[in-house]
């Protein structure tokens, strides 16, 4: 691991030590965040899977009804009965925050719906009624599916980002700090030793010069 390009001074070392402490704390926190996100994500994605299977099966059923309906009715009459719907389905959009991920919450709002059929019964087949009732039944699940699937999408992206951060802290930043601190400590010790030996040597030389006496009798 590369040592950072810094001056080997005591001040720099103190600064790096502080940064290392922050990095360690950040790493721990991000790791907790990742674990909790993961737990919630797995739960959500399991629900999502069940919901999707259910909705897909129901939609297929609807499609079959529509195919039957179009077989017994002419295309124009079918299309016009479906187009003449008055009511509008909307969703109330709300938000929830799961571990700093903003996920949407949808709740169905139906205007002008008296529970009746959107078309008259006179010229339409019962197959069409079945198809529309079936589709009406799927609608809440379909909206729920949109909610969970979007949440899963957002959370998956957030987990990936968090994991990258955790890994970068764990495998790059923290070792780099540690290495650099070690490098500075060694460098400082080395300087210490070299100045000490220099002092001893100078002392020897001075003593010899003054008294013709050597401390180390060699």
């Amino acid at each position: 691991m590369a040592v950072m390009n810094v001056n080997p001074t005591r001040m720099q070392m103190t600064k790096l030590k502080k940064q290392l402490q922050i990095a360690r704390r950040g790493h721990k926190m991000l790791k907790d965040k990742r674990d909790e996100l993961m737990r919630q994500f797995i739960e959500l994605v399991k629900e999502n899977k069940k919901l999707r299977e259910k909705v897909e099966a129901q939609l297929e059923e609807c499609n079959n009804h529509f195919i039957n309906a179009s077989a017994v009715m002419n295309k124009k009459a079918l299309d016009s009965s479906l187009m003449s719907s008055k009511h509008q389905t909307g969703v109330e959009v709300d938000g929830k925050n799961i571990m700093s991920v903003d996920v949407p919450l949808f709740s169905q709002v139906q205007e002008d719906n008296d529970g009746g059929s959107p078309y008259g019964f006179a010229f339409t087949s019962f197959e069409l009624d079945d198809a529309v009732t079936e589709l009406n039944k799927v609608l809440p699940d379909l909206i729920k599916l949109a909610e969970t699937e979007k949440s899963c999408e957002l959370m998956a992206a957030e987990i990936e980002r968090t994991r990258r951060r955790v890994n970068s802290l764990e495998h790059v930043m923290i070792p780099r700090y540690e290495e650099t601190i070690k490098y500075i400590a060694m460098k400082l010790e080395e300087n210490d030793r070299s100045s000490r030996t220099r002092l001893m040597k100078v002392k020897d030389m001075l003593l010899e010069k003054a008294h013709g006496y050597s401390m180390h009798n060699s």
Partner: protein
Amino acid sequence: MVKNIAVIGDSESIKGFGAVGIDMFICDEPLESGNLFKRIAETDDYAIIYMTEELFELSAKERHKFADNAIPAVIPIPSAQGNRGIGRKRLSKFVEQAVGSDILFGN
């Protein structure tokens, strides 16, 4: 804030949705789906946009821009031509992105 729901697809697959109060955008020309999606998403009137799987795949580039926003939620649904498993593949892609390997669908 109340927003509407849209569905984009070929006329065969989505004709029923009008009857339950969802705004239909018929797109019989698959290559046009990207532009159509962009137009709808940019109006900001829709919280959920359902797309048939075929068109969902074709408009990947346009969808990418909205992937990080909470709304609109773009959701693939099977078309009248049958289920191509794109919704399921999308789910396992999420799991793979988050966990690192697909532990849910086991492949």
